[in-house]
C-alpha cells in the first residue's frame, strides 16, 4: 500500500505533480498507475496542434523558392508564429492533461534524450507526435523514427552524408549519445557506420523520409566486429544486440526518473531485463514504478526540477491558466531551458546543471512571476501585513498546500516553521503569504 508521500513521488516522476482535485482522491497503486496511463500500450492516436490550413501554409513556405517576393512575405508573416505556438501547445498539454500524463512526461524525457533544434513549426509538431506515440513502445522503432526524422537528419547532418563525402556527425552521436555510449566503440566504428547511413534524406515539402540509392555506399563495412554490406538499419540492429546499449539507456532513464546518482548493480539488473524484453520501454517503466526501491526515502525530492517541471507543475498545482501559450517562450528563456533549442548536441544534462548564478534567482522568484505579483507588488505588500488576506478572486487558485512537497517530513518542517513565525495561521491557510513562502523555498526546487 502506498503512503501519501509515495503517491506524490509517483505523480511527480511519472507526471508533473498533483492537481488539487487529484490530490483529493484516495489512490491505490493500481489506480494511480492506470490514471497516469503508465499501463498504456502506446495505441493512442495523437493529433498535431497545427491545423490542415497551417500545414498547407507551411508547405507553401517550404516551396517558397518558386514564389514571387510579395507572396513569400505574405506566407512568412503567416507562419512566423507557428513554431512557438506548437511548442507552447505541447507545454499546455502537460498542464491540462488528465488522461495522458505519463505519455507526455515520457515525450519530454525523449526530447531530453534525443536533443534537436528546429525553427520549422511543421517538423516540430510532427516530431512531438513521434515522441508521444512511440515513447512507450519498443526502443528500436523509436530510435529508427527519430533517426529518420527531418529535424534530426538536418541537425546532425545526415542529409549531408554522401557516398563520396561521408559526414560522421549522426553516426558519432548515435553511438555516443543515443545508444551504447562513450568507451564502447572505436573511431573506426564511427567511420564505417557513417558509410552505412549515406543516402538518407527527406522530402523537403512533406518532411517524409527518403532513401536515395545513388548517394548510398553499397560497399562492405566493418562495424563492431561484423562485416557486410550494411545499411543504416543494420547498424542500429548491431548496436542493439549489445547488452551495453540496454545498460546505457537504463542508466539515463534511472537518472531522470529515480535518482541522479545510480547504483551500478541495479542498472545492470534493469538493463538485462530491458534487453530480454526486446527494449520494451513501457514495460520497463512499469517495472520501475512498481519496484519498492523506487519509493525509498533517498529517492524522495532527490532531483532538481527542470525549468519545464517548474512551469508545468506550478500551473497544475495552482490551477492557473496563462492567456496565450506564446507566453511560455519567455518563461523558458527566464528559467534557461528552451525546448527545441538545446545549447549543444548533448542537450540538457539536467539536475545541478540547471543551477547557475543567473537561473537560481529566476527559479526562486518564478512563483511570483507566474502569479503576476511583481507588477502589483505594492498592493500585495500591504495585504501581506494583514496576514489574513485571501487570494484575490481574479486569480483562480485551487491549491492544496499539501501537494507542494513530496517529503512528508520536509512538509511538516515547513509548516511548523511558517506557523511558528506567524506567516500562516494553520495548515489550511490558503493565503498568498504562505503560498509565496512555499514557492520561494528551496524545497520547492526539488521533486
Amino acid at each position: 500500500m502506498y503512503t501519501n508521500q509515495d503517491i506524490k513521488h509517483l505523480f511527480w516522476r511519472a507526471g508533473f505533480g498533483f492537481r488539487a482535485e487529484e490530490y483529493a482522491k484516495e489512490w491505490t497503486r493500481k489506480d494511480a498507475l492506470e490514471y497516469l496511463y503508465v499501463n498504456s500500450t502506446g495505441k493512442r492516436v495523437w493529433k498535431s496542434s497545427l491545423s490542415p490550413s497551417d500545414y498547407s501554409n507551411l508547405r507553401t513556405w517550404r516551396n517558397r523558392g518558386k514564389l514571387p517576393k510579395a507572396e513569400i512575405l505574405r506566407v512568412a508573416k503567416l507562419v512566423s508564429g507557428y513554431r512557438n505556438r506548437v511548442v507552447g501547445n505541447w507545454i499546455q498539454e502537460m498542464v491540462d492533461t488528465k488522461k495522458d500524463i505519463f505519455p507526455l512526461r515520457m515525450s519530454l524525457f525523449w526530447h531530453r534524450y534525443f536533443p534537436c533544434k528546429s525553427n520549422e513549426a511543421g517538423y516540430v509538431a510532427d516530431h512531438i507526435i513521434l515522441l508521444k506515440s512511440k515513447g512507450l513502445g519498443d526502443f528500436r522503432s523509436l530510435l529508427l523514427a527519430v533517426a529518420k526524422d527531418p529535424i534530426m537528419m538536418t541537425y546532425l547532418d545526415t542529409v549531408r552524408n554522401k557516398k563520396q563525402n561521408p559526414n560522421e556527425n549522426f553516426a558519432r552521436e548515435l553511438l555516443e549519445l543515443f545508444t551504447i555510449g562513450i568507451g564502447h566503440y572505436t573511431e573506426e566504428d564511427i567511420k564505417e557506420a557513417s558509410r552505412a547511413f549515406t543516402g538518407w534524406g527527406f522530402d523537403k515539402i512533406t518532411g517524409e523520409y527518403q532513401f536515395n540509392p545513388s548517394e548510398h555506399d553499397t560497399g562492405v563495412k566493418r562495424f563492431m566486429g561484423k562485416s557486410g554490406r550494411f545499411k543504416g538499419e543494420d547498424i542500429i540492429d548491431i548496436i542493439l544486440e549489445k547488452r551495453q546499449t540496454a545498460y546505457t539507456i537504463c542508466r539515463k532513464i534511472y537518472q531522470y526518473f529515480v535518482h541522479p546518482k545510480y547504483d551500478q548493480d541495479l542498472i545492470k539488473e534493469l538493463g538485462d531485463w530491458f534487453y530480454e524484453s526486446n527494449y520494451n520501454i513501457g514495460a520497463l517503466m512499469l517495472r520501475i514504478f512498481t519496484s519498492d526501491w523506487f519509493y525509498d526515502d533517498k529517492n524522495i525530492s532527490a532531483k532538481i526540477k527542470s525549468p519545464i517541471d517548474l512551469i508545468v507543475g506550478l500551473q497544475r498545482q495552482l490551477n492557473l491558466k496563462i492567456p496565450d501559450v506564446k507566453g511560455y517562450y519567455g518563461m523558458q528563456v527566464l528559467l534557461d531551458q528552451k525546448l527545441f533549442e538545446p545549447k549543444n548536441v548533448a542537450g540538457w544534462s539536467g539536475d545541478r546543471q540547471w543551477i547557475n548564478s543567473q537561473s537560481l534567482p529566476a527559479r526562486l522568484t518564478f512563483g511570483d512571476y507566474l502569479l503576476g505579483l511583481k507588477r502589483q507588488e505594492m498592493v500585495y505588500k500591504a495585504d501581506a501585513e494583514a496576514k489574513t488576506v485571501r487570494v484575490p478572486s481574479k486569480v483562480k487558485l485551487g491549491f492544496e498546500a499539501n501537494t507542494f512537497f513530496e517529503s512528508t517530513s520536509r512538509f511538516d518542517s515547513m509548516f511548523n516553521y511558517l506557523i511558528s513565525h506567524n506567516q500562516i495561521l494553520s495548515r489550511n491557510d490558503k493565503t498568498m503569504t504562505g503560498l509565496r513562502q512555499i514557492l520561494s523555498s528551496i524545497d520547492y526546487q526539488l521533486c
Partner: protein
Amino acid sequence: MLKNDRRKFIRDLSAISIGAVTSSNFLSCATRLDSKNEGAQGKNLVVIQLAGGNDGLNTFVPYRNDIYFKNRPNVALQKKEIIAGSGQYDIGFNQALSPIVKLYDKGMLSVVNGVGYKDPIRSHFRASDIWHSGTKSSEFIETGWLGRVFDHAPYHDHIGVAIEDSLPPILKGQHSNSLAFTDINRLYSKYKALEVNQFNQLNDIHASENYRFLVEKLTQTKKQVENLKQYYKTFTPKSSYPPSKLGKDLAIVSNLIKSDTSIAVYFLTIGGFDSHANQKVNQAKRLSEYSLAVDAFVKDMKANGLMKDTLIFTFSEFGRRVRENGSKGTDHGTANSAWFIGESLKKQGFYNALPSLANTVGNDLVFQIDYRRLYVDILEHWLGVSYGTVISDPKNELKGLGLL
C-alpha cells in the same frame, strides 16, 4: 597596481555554513599542497576558447609545405593571405591575425604547436570537456582544472569569472563558487530582489544532498554578487574596444581587473570556428574579431601598467583534418596550436615546429605535446601553485615547457 594582500575579496568564506565538502575524492591520491602556503600572487589569467574547433593549420600556416597545398585546393591560404613568420620553422600567420603578429614581433607571443592528448576525441562537447577538466581522454570528472585552483589555499578565497550565461565546466570546483555573468548590474538586481526565505536556512536530517547543494549555492552566490557589485567600477579604457561580443566581454574583464578584486581567472569564448563549409571567409572573420579584441585589451592593460600581471591563454577544443572536405571546409581533427600572450614569456615566438603533415593517422595530425603540460606552466609559474593539487598525475609524467 595594488599589492595582492589589499585585494578586495569577493568570496566570503564565512558564508559557507552548510554542506561544505571537506575532502575531495579526486585529489585524495594526488600531491597535497606544499606547506609553504604562499598567498595568491596577484596575477590575472585570461583564458579564451575558440569554440567549435579552430583550424590550426590555417591559423599558423605551413606555407612552404606542398602537402598543405595539395590537401587543400580550396581551403589553403594563398600568398597574399599569409604574413610570413620570421622564425626558424617556416610558419606563417593567417593575415586576419595581423594585430597578433605585432605582438609576436614584440616578443609577447608564445605559440605551442601539436598540442593534444592520447586517444583524441572529435566530439565538440566531449573534447571541450577534456580541455576544461584537465584529464586524460578516458577520465570523466565534473570539475574543471581552474575551478579546482579555487578549492585550495592559496586561492581558496579567490574566484574565477566567466563572461557567459552559465558557468562553464572549466571553472567548476568541488566547493569553490566561481561566477558567470554578462552584466553585473542585471545580476545584482536579480539577487537584490530575492528575499532569502528564512525557511531556506532550515536544514534538517531529511534534507537531501541536492537541498544542501542549493542552500549553499544560494547563500554563497548572493554574498558574492553583493560584494562584486560593491567593488566593481567602470573605468575609461585607454584603447578602444571593438563592438564585437569578445570586445565587449574583454572590456568587462578590463574593468574587473582594474577594480582590483580577488578574481584571479577570467574565462571567455568566441564561437563560430566549426568550419565545415566555406572555411576561408568564415575563419578569417572570426580570427580577425579575436585579434582586434585581444589587441585592444593588451593596449589597455599596458597603458595601465597591468600587462605584466596579465597572461592570456588561447585554446580550441580540437584542430581540423589536414585534407579539406567536399564543401570548402575541414572536418573535426585532433592536435592543434595553443598560445600565450604576455610580457614576460621565457620562450618567445614558436616553441616548436608544426606536426608532420606526412605522418598523419587517418589524415589527422599526431599530437606532440600533452595539453596538460601547458597547464603545468600556468599553475606552477604563473599562479604559483603546485600542479599536483589540480591535475592528477600519479606517475609524475607531466613536465612544464618552461614558457612562463
